């Protein structure tokens, strides 16, 4: 389908093209069953950044306020990348892990499902 416009060949800028982010790309990061953070967060990250830095830096900055955070067993965390199950290689870059501009990473922590297992 296409928009109906008052003139032919209507188009406009893709306002969130990756070129607009000064060398970074956007990455969304959400934690399933932890609705205290009501939605995923968005972060501008260099595509060359190793995935391990997400775990070391980005995830704590986003989620460390949750009491479940300290109990996370990082060996057991399951990841979803753009809706598909995913095993990140920690020393490889986001790019090489297939994390692209505006990719959504979801973190699942088996056994940790929010305050009193409530999903919050």
């Amino acid at each position, binding site marked *: *389908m*296409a*928009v*109906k*416009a*008052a003139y032919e060949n*209507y*188009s*406009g*800028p*893709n*306002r*969130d*093209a*990756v070129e*607009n*982010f*000064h060398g*970074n790309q*956007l990455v*969304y*990061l*959400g934690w*399933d*069953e932890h*609705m*205290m*953070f*009501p*939605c*995923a*967060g*968005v*972060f*501008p990250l260099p595509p060359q950044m190793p995935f391990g830095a997400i775990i070391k830096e980005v995830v704590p*900055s*986003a989620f460390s*306020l949750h009491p479940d955070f300290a109990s996370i067993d990082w060996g057991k965390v399951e990841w979803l990348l*753009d*809706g598909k199950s995913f095993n990140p290689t920690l020393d490889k870059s986001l790019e090489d892990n297939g994390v*692209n*501009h*505006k*990719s*959504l990473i*979801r973190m699942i922590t088996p056994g940790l*499902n*929010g*305050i*009193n297992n*409530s*999903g*919050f």
Partner: protein
Amino acid sequence: MEQAKKMNMKEKYNAMTGDLAWDFSYKTEAEIFPLSDFEGIKIEDWSKWQDPFRLTMDAYWKYQGEKERKLYAVIDAFGQNNAHLGVTDARYINALKIFLTAVTPLEYGAHRGFAMTGRAFPGVGAQVASQMQSIDELRHAQTQLHTISQYNKYFDGLHDPFHMFDRVWYLSVPKSYFEDALSAGPFEFITAISFSFEYVLTNLLFMPFMSGAAYNGDMATVNFGFSAQSDESRHMTLGLEVIKFMLEQHPDNLPIIQRWIDKYFWRGYRLLGIVGMMMDYMLPKRVMSWKEGWEMYFEQNGKMLFDDLARYGITMPKFWEQSVEEKEHLTHQLWLTFYSYGHAAAFHTWIPDDSELDWLSEKYPNTFDKYYRPRLVYLREQEKLGKRFYNPSLPQLCQTCQIPMVYTDPKNPTKRVYRETIYNGDRFHFCSDACKEIFEHEPEKMSQAWLPPHQIFQGNCGGATIPDVLKHYHFTENDGGEFLHSRDNANWNLWKGLTPDEEAA
């Protein structure tokens, strides 16, 4: 001298509206009305347009003048009598802050939009109706600003509504809704605003809100609200007339109109979530719950509106069932969202007191105690421990409605809904199937959305830190955050001779 026979209402209407038009002699209709056909709507005969109210221009001015005189008398009395002290509680003012920053600029947007349709439509009946509504909407914006400016003398967060509207992250929700309609053609605009918004949804904005103002002792808002609402009946009637007229003119119009109805019903419903949040959480004395309002004004009355149009082939807006499925979750999720982003809002948030939690339990027996009361109680305990929760990261927004992606599957309310699509090699994210469909129908347009968190990272919002961005928004240090800690709360307790809250600023 023989007196001329008095005209009846219909003759008078024709003489005082339709006959005010003129025929063109040296330009063609297509040259004069270049925006009248690109959307695909076919109009065979504009003279078939009937305004059911048959309000003539002279009667219009007379009634509007009278409404203004009544309203400004009240505003004067309000100021002279320190009536800001008469509201139930300083928390109430926060509903006004949302109204002034999120709704008043929409009134101004409607003024612009109807000025556009009044110029773009070739038929004189539609031109006159558009002109009246355009002037009404300007009046609404002005009277709201004048009225609420009384509160701006005493409370925070009310000082810069139009500056904020163009910049603030959550205000991009109403702004993008309206600009989607304003940047479309005249038929789409009038379907979006007159029908989908005014006719189907506006009762939910004004009836509970103005009744809530009355219940909470806000004399000034009641008066601007009802003064505006008296125009609204005419606007709603125009919405119905527009739809019937287009459908009667040509059978090809039906699928185009149905799609607009689907689109703006959904976008309008998403927008109204914030009103639901005011009804359930922000009014110290509550009139009705969001759920009750949705049942009364959409499920019952809305269905009758669509029954009226069934003879033309119009059906209930697509995805309406989802709005019903979400009704027991919507407001709780939105309030928790604003609570967690309270440090970046121009109004205060708080945890309701126990009697208010009980009211919510009673109104939402299937969901509140099970899901939402424990969350609110937990957050209240954290606040008491000095750990008031604020979400440190910027939210992922839906590309279409621009609301943070907080909505859950009603069958599984701890699972967020994530939808996405790829367009021109880029990924776009949506809160719902409906928002995704709206995008996929017009990706050239919707991919241009100005999403505030992304704009912050592009460097277009004053800087990289939250204080930089809040300065860019013209927020002061007193505008947002926890109500208990606020200057509004401290002042209120002082003015009313109440015991100060231990935690107040």
